[in-house]
């Protein structure tokens, strides 16, 4: 009964047009009132959901992205990207995919990725004549690769969730994710190109030659260095992901105000204000989702689902498919970390029992949960993308199918071809 109230009130409020975060909050309040528990718990979970140190990277990357956008870094990166792939149809979309992948490797979080790259790329793509929905979809999907990159904290979360069920080493999972990350990038490139061709996005003249590429690269280098600083900083142990994000802000400030000298005081204030507002939207949603997750756990939604599934079929490929579909459905509502922590203990034993390697399951789960970041009603990456692009979720959903298609192709390859995830770890980690 509590779950019915939670689900129906949430959907009702959503359809009315109440902003998503408040719809989640109000339906949580309604549910907790019915259950006879103190409403204060909803707000405690909200505060707890916001107070995660690694989430600080979100406002930082949003801020750094805003500074790069107003301060001319983005223009130079785009000139470089254009010199490289601009002559291909939909070139800016393609370089967006590559840029997001690189940046995802740095941030290890789709949310940080979309915050940083989205803030730069989405407005620029709009300026260059691309539709907002395309710009948002390309960015939000390319950003998902971040969940598979070596710095992904979700990898750590997964290996923790396997404790007591199976032995998956963090390093093993990191290596297992590398090839799937590459496949996902290729799928994303394919989708971006396909849509660009169908919509007839412009090509921008001929390839200007390697000389021009080198010149554009030199101009963009101070900006691109931020990636090196972050990646090098984390890998060498100079700072944590969160600290690297704060350093990115500092670096962006130095480059835009001292190196390029393009950031005006007015632009700086604008960037500050925009970063604060976007952060408010995003962190409220993350915080209040924690309240939602509380009810999911309290009323054992995933556990009940797991038991039901085991009674339906015994066929491995069907089981795997069902696990994927259920993960997808839960991922529409739940935050990535919550899905991993709650679902791993249920689905991992079933999949292992039917012959899947735990690390392969991990990759599959990460991709699936990443997909959930781009599905309404609770899709944090998608929300950030929409907020930056100034479009509604509905507009974006209408043209999202090629991008979902790319993700699903990658997901199926990982689910049914063990070699994609298991070959490299077996080769490297003897």
């Amino acid at each position, binding site marked *: 009964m509590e779950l019915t109230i939670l689900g129906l009130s949430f959907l009702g*409020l*959503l*359809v*009315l*047009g*109440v*902003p*998503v*975060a*408040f*719809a989640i*909050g*109000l339906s949580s*309040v309604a549910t907790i009132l019915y259950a006879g528990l103190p*409403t*204060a718990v*909803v*707000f*405690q979970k909200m*505060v707890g959901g*916001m*107070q995660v*140190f690694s989430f*600080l990277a979100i*406002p*930082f990357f949003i*801020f750094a992205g805003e500074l790069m956008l107003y301060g001319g870094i983005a223009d130079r990166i785009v000139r470089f990207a254009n010199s490289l792939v601009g002559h291909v149809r939909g070139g800016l979309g393609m370089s967006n995919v590559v840029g997001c992948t690189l940046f995802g490797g740095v941030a290890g979080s789709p949310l940080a990725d979309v915050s940083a790259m989205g803030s730069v790329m989405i407005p620029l793509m709009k300026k260059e004549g691309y539709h907002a929905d395309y710009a948002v979809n390309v960015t939000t999907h390319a950003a998902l690769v971040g969940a598979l990159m070596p710095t992904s904290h979700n990898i750590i979360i997964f290996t923790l969730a396997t404790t007591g069920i199976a032995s998956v080493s963090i390093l093993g999972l990191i290596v297992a994710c590398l090839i799937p990350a590459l496949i996902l990038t290729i799928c994303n490139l394919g989708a971006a190109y396909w849509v660009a061709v169908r919509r007839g996005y412009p090509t921008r003249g001929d390839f200007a030659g390697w000389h021009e590429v080198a010149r554009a690269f030199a101009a963009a280098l101070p900006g691109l260095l931020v990636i090196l600083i972050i990646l090098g900083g984390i890998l060498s142990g*100079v*700072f944590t992901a*969160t*600290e690297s*994000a*704060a*350093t990115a*802000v*500092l670096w962006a400030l130095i480059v835009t105000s001292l190196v390029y000298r393009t950031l005006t005081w007015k632009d700086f*204030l*604008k960037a*500050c*204000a925009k*970063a*604060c*507002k976007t*952060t*408010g*939207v995003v*962190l*409220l949603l993350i*915080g209040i989702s924690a309240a939602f997750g509380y009810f999911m756990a309290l009323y054992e939604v995933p556990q009940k689902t797991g038991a039901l599934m085991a009674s339906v079929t015994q066929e491995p490929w069907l089981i795997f498919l069902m696990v994927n579909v259920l993960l997808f459905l839960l991922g529409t509502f739940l935050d990535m970390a919550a899905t991993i922590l709650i679902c791993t203990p249920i689905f991992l034993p079933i999949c292992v029992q039917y012959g899947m390697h735990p690390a392969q399951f991990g990759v599959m789960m990460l991709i699936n949960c990443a997909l959930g970041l781009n599905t*309404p*009603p609770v899709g944090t990456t998608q*929300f950030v993308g*929409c*907020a930056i692009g100034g479009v*509604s*979720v*509905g507009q974006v959903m209408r043209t999202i199918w090629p991008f979902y298609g790319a993700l699903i192709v990658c997901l199926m390859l990982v689910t049914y071809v063990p070699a994609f995830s298991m070959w490299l770890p077996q080769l490297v980690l003897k």
Partner: protein
Amino acid sequence: MDGFTRVCAWLSRLSLVVAVLLLLAVIACVQWQVIGRYVFNDTPTWAEALAMLLVLYMTSLAVAVGVRDAGHIGLESLIVLLPERFRLKLEVLIHLLVGVFGFLMAKAGWLWATMKWNEKKPMLGVPEGADYVPLVVAGALIVLFCAEHIVALLRGIEVEPAWN
């Protein structure tokens, strides 16, 4: 512009200015942590705790500003389909609901803040209840801004964002 609107606009602008200052302070905290660890080999233990506390204040103020500027994301599908007079009623209802949430937020924030005022926060020494003060402030601001929106809707005017 009448007095009520002027007060709301001023509060919204103030909130945003404070939020920006807090954001800069949070960045400074995290940077100081890195400097302390390497330059002085003495990690400032308060830095992370302070950053986590300040980010709550920053986010809460930004959330309230977002309510006034209509920055929060929703599915507007149904509203655009409705005839004008229903649309107005629905928009009033939405602001009413958001206002109710703001009220509950302030109330819960008050409960936790008072309950946890005597517990000391590790690393900082400030009351644990300080975590929940921003809920009270932001909740009250949300109620106020929703009221402003409802008044504006009934009078057929738009609420201008305070600072872009």
